[in-house]
């Protein structure tokens, strides 16, 4: 049997004669396995980013150790834990919204638009319907998911039928949704006579149920945890989750194997948008129990979530951890500013550095092969 070997082509994979494994090569095989572990890359990126951050703090003439310990203290102090968890839920939710399409190799950059549309839908239900809590809150959350999910799903046919990549359509559609919501708030749904564009305060029946005596974390946290678990389950144990991963690994292989790529992309984008919408709903059904123009976007949950999803490589088991990391940075930033006098913007710096280091991990491969990866 012979084939025509094309340099670099698939044909060059030659049958390898089995070699007896020496002790040394077995050790190096074990090492390779360890290095291949999916947790290695994100951990390495975080460690490097922390070091780079420390260098920046040092260069600014400040103390990195006290800065970092202030971050940890600020976020994980028992008194703040309640607040930290409430933020974690939101970042985790937006990370989930980014992670679902990431499983099939697509970027959802439209989390902002999906989140505010969800917030709008929830606000509309909460403000307009006079129902008992037990009906009103689930209805508001579901409405948020449906509206934002439908909005997110638009990107799938735009990609499969019109050839506009998902990353581009989500990026372009998002500001349109943000503007629509802002317009409605200011001119249609807003509280009359208020200087701020915001809805009226929702009735008590629309206040997300509290968790015991906690003042920030509420049932939204539980909802996000349930969604995370559901994602993990679907990703690892369901036919659909399997198919999504196959698309992400090799789209041609998926279509050859009978996966309906278009339909699945539609479902994934709908789910992604829906989760972002639910995050929006959780925000508006929590204090101050209004939809306030711009308030959903200013904390930057979308890009923190996207960064967390990227760092986790979209893996459901890692998303809560990476989301926790970015939550600690975000929440602890304030504490750092107060107690160590290091500007809280260091949090954003670190978020950015983690992602840059993560992206540049290809340097290792390109060094190994000794040539540029693009040709």
């Amino acid at each position, binding site marked *: 049997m012979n084939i025509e070997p094309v340099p670099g082509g698939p044909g060059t994979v030659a049958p390898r004669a089995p070699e007896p494994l020496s002790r040394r090569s077995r050790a190096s095989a074990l090492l390779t396995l360890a290095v291949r572990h999916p947790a290695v890359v994100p951990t390495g990126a975080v460690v490097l980013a922390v070091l780079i951050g420390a260098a920046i703090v040092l260069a600014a003439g400040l103390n990195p150790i006290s800065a970092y310990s202030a971050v940890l203290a600020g976020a994980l102090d028992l008194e703040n834990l309640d607040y930290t968890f409430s933020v974690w839920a939101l970042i985790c939710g937006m990370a989930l919204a980014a992670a679902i399409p990431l499983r099939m190799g697509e970027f959802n950059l439209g989390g902002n638009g999906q989140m505010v549309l969800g917030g709008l839908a929830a606000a509309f239900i909460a403000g307009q319907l006079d129902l008992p809590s037990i009906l009103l809150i689930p209805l508001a959350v579901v409405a948020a998911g449906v509206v934002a999910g439908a909005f997110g799903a638009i990107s799938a046919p735009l990609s499969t039928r019109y050839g506009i990549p998902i990353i581009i359509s989500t990026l372009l559609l998002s500001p349109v949704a943000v503007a629509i919501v802002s317009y409605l708030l200011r001119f249609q749904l807003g509280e009359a006579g208020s200087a701020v564009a915001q809805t009226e305060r929702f009735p008590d029946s629309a206040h997300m149920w509290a968790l015991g005596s906690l003042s920030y974390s509420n049932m939204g946290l539980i909802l996000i945890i349930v969604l995370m678990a559901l994602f993990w389950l679907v990703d690892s144990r369901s036919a659909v989750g399997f198919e999504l991963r196959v698309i992400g690994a090799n789209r041609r292989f998926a279509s050859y194997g009978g996966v309906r790529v278009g339909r699945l992309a539609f479902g994934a984008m709908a789910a992604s948008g829906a989760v972002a919408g639910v995050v929006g709903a959780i925000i508006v059904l929590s204090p101050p129990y209004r939809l306030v123009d711009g308030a959903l976007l200013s904390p930057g949950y979308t890009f923190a979530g996207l960064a967390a999803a990227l760092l986790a490589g979209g893996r459901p088991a890692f998303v809560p951890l990476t989301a926790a990391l970015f939550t600690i940075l975000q929440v602890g930033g304030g504490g750092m500013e107060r107690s160590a006098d290091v500007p809280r913007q260091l949090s954003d710096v670190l978020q*950015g550095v983690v992602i840059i280091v993560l992206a540049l991990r290809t340097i290792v491969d390109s060094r190994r092969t000794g040539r540029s990866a693009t*040709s």
Partner: protein
Amino acid sequence: MNVFEWGFVAAVLLAATPILYSSLAGALSSQVGVFNIALEGQMLWGAFAAVAGSFYTGSAWAGVLIAVVTTALFSVTLAVGSARWGADPIVIAIGTNLFALGITGFLMRVLFDVSGTFSPRGLQGLDKMSFLAEIPVLGPVFAGQTALVPLAFVFIVVIGLWLKLTPSGLRLRGVGEHPEAASSLGIKVASYQMWVTIAGGALCGIAGAQLSLGNVTVFTENMTAGRGWIAVAAVMLVMGRPLWLPVACLGFGAAEALGFRLQGIGAPQQLTDAAPYAITIAVLVGMRMWVTARNRRPSLSAQPVPLPSQPESTS
């Protein structure tokens, strides 16, 4: 509100200029096959560097120079990472955008001990071309503008001609269209991608400087406020034809200027906020539908290919 007054034209130019510079950067990147969504962060850094430079040197033009140089350096991560090391430019850009947002705020605190807004007394802005004031038309349009505004159009023309007429411009266009073909003819594809991305960084530096020293004389946290994304939309809108950029950017600039006026009279500015994105997506979909319809119309050359005929030749 009279759309046709010269003051409005001036406002459109003012709004369009930063977008023009940064979308030129994005368009050049896309010509060499690098999808550049790092414009927002690079422009923000440029705006900060320009103000800091002007503050330390006392010269606004020195500020511009510092913005250009440091933003070019800022873009090295994207340039080298994506062209040399094969990293995903999208992921790098997400990282550098976050980084720019953080580091500008961080440095504002560390260097100037302020947060939110930095506008020290005596901060030099770029000179307006007030010597034009007496000239009709040019006066009302350009007298209140910095030299960077007309310079943007000079850049567009020069770069357009360069792409069209010079050997390096020709090669550059080939790199993005068909990298394998270019490299088979001896073109160093990665170098082109890298240097063009760095040049794009320099252009974003100008964009930021115009924003912080030309449009106003102040740096505020996140002052680009999405202009980098509008530039990305403009790049997509023109689909690889940089000479159309002025049209797209002036249109988007008009939307911004109009929105500003609408806001002034309490009318919905949101319409004009959304316009650049809505127009871009509508044009992309429309173009695609048109192309599909056009391809469907003529029959495919469906007559079967006859078998190879007897060789006419030789024996």
